[in-house]
């Protein structure tokens, strides 16, 4: 599995962009050296990035499949090619909390990008988390092979049968990639001269507002998941009822046929129920998968934030 190496130029440009538009979301494109000329084929080195216009955001989510977005990307790449910059589209970035990537539109973006370049990934920059923890809240994801094989079937509807067949569940929708930052020689030299000394702030008790916000968001997701579960349960009850009816019909037909056989009459068709009863269609399981994954991620986030606060509080408690 490959890992992502972010050059300082990309790190700071992305950081500047996402902080500029925060709390709104934004996104952009990440460029790297072409796969063929990489030093280490396992490391994707992101050397350059450019921001996408805010008009590429639809309902708070980046739309990478729109005509406008693609025209913009094409234009920027062609211009960057003129100055011989790296123009291999390695992936894209988005500023939001990690739990927000479990969204149908984001998944469509990831799928489209991975169709064009199987190695592409999405870099999620969580500005709110970065602000609270003082660390770079950056993680990278790619759709899992399991999800790709289900999505490839062409039908927009994901059924339980497909989930079982491809061994897909909410925990393996995406794969996380390792991200590290990298300073080239010039940057290292520059930083040796100019880097500021960071004021140590490790004793600061983290702000718990974000914890609350994640807990609230988890609650909303839980409601959505409950609703979805309710729908599914309704479908299952309906299905059982219909199956019962069919079984009754079959029993009745079998009895009729037995009677007719005694009277030496031709048996009636036993397949006729297929036109009489129509089994209701299974609701799309994608929504439930995404909500489950989102809830899981929100829980992890809450745990990490609460754990972080606890570990800063414990030494303070001993001091009392």
């Amino acid at each position, binding site marked *: 599995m490959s890992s992502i190496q972010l050059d300082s130029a990309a790190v700071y440009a992305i950081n500047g962009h996402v902080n500029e538009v925060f709390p709104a979301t934004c996104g952009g494109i990440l460029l790297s050296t072409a796969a063929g000329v990489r030093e280490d084929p396992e490391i994707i080195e992101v050397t350059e990035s450019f921001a996408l216009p805010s008009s590429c955001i639809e309902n708070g989510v980046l739309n990478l499949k729109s005509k406008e977005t693609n025209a913009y990307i094409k234009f920027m790449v062609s211009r960057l090619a003129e100055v011989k910059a790296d123009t291999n589209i390695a992936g894209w970035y988005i500023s939001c909390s990690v739990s927000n990537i479990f969204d149908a539109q984001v998944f469509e973006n990831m799928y489209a990008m991975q169709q064009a370049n199987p190695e592409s990934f999405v870099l999620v920059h969580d500005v709110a988390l970065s602000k609270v923890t003082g660390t770079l809240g950056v993680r990278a994801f790619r759709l899992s092979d399991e999800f790709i094989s289900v999505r490839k079937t062409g039908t927009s509807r994901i059924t339980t049968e497909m989930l079982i067949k491809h061994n897909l569940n909410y925990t393996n929708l995406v794969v996380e990639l390792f991200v590290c930052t990298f300073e080239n020689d010039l940057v290292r030299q520059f930083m040796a001269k100019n880097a500021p000394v960071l004021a140590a702030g490790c004793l600061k008790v983290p702000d718990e507002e974000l914890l609350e916000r994640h807990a609230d968001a988890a609650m909303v997701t839980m409601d959505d998941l409950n609703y979805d579960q309710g729908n599914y349960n309704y479908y299952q009850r309906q299905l059982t009822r219909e199956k019962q009816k069919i079984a009754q019909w079959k029993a009745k037909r079998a009895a009729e046929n037995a009677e007719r056989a005694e009277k030496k009459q031709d048996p009636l068709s036993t397949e006729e129920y297929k036109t009489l009863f129509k089994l209701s269609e299974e609701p799309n399981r994608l929504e439930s998968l995404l909500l*489950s994954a989102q*809830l899981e991620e929100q829980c992890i986030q809450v*745990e990490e934030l609460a754990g972080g606060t606890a570990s800063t509080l414990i030494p303070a408690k001993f001091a009392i």
Partner: protein
Amino acid sequence: MVDQPLYVSHPHFVGPRSFVLYPQKVTIDTQAIFQILGHAVRSPANHRRVVGTLLGYRNEDNSEVNVKAAFMMPLTETQYEISIPTGYQSEMFNAIRKAHPDYVVIGWYSTSSNISLLDSFIQNYFTEESSMFRYPPVFVHVNAEDNMEVKAYVTSQLFYGSTRNPDDCNCMFTPIEHSIEFSESDKPALAARTERADPDLYGLTSTISESIAEILTQIDLVAAKVAEIRRSKPTEATEKLGKYLFKMLSNSPVLEPSSKTNINDPRSAMFNAHMRDLVSIINLTNSIKSQVQLSTEVATRLN
């Protein structure tokens, strides 16, 4: 030749607006510097240097400019000749402006080791281009070839002879004040850098002791200030400070004084209550996770 006067135009810029001040101060954001250094490091070995356009903000009277981003220009250069494709800059600028609507063209940068004669031609090109944007360009020189020194310049035009023909014109580069800014939002990125450089526990303990020392100095500072205020007559300034400190104190919970050994120490009780809250939050999220897992299992297994 000798009796021809040399004209030096004062650092002001004659554009569509009659008179524009030259910037006196340039703030260069780290993101722009890293972009420039990135361009320099990846430029082909036979390239002498990288030249590009600087984008960012300027204040109302153009006395201060802030460089936010940089993009490279496709420049072909020999010892005596340079060529810049027309239109590249404005096309690129218009595209970037779709994503960053507030950006303006600030000037240009070069990564050579020194300023050469050709630079004045580039400066003239940018002056002409930026007359479109009504402001004189700033030149930022990043010496990526040896000492990484960053300098900012504005130019005055020098005319030789009385014709004032722009083709005969040369430039005088006047250095202006500049600073490299690590903004508040860069801190997480910088922290990631320090963490990597110093990931061991020893580093952590040293940062903790630094933090403690910092807090102690802050407490001393406040204590000294309070003592000083108590000694002197109240003035408006001290009154303000007093009110601020009082407000800060009232934010913290009121605690009954009690002995340190007492288990029922209210501070200890408060900490415990908070810890219990945190632990129960963690337990709750854990149970939610298990439930999600369970319901998924049930849904798939039953089919």
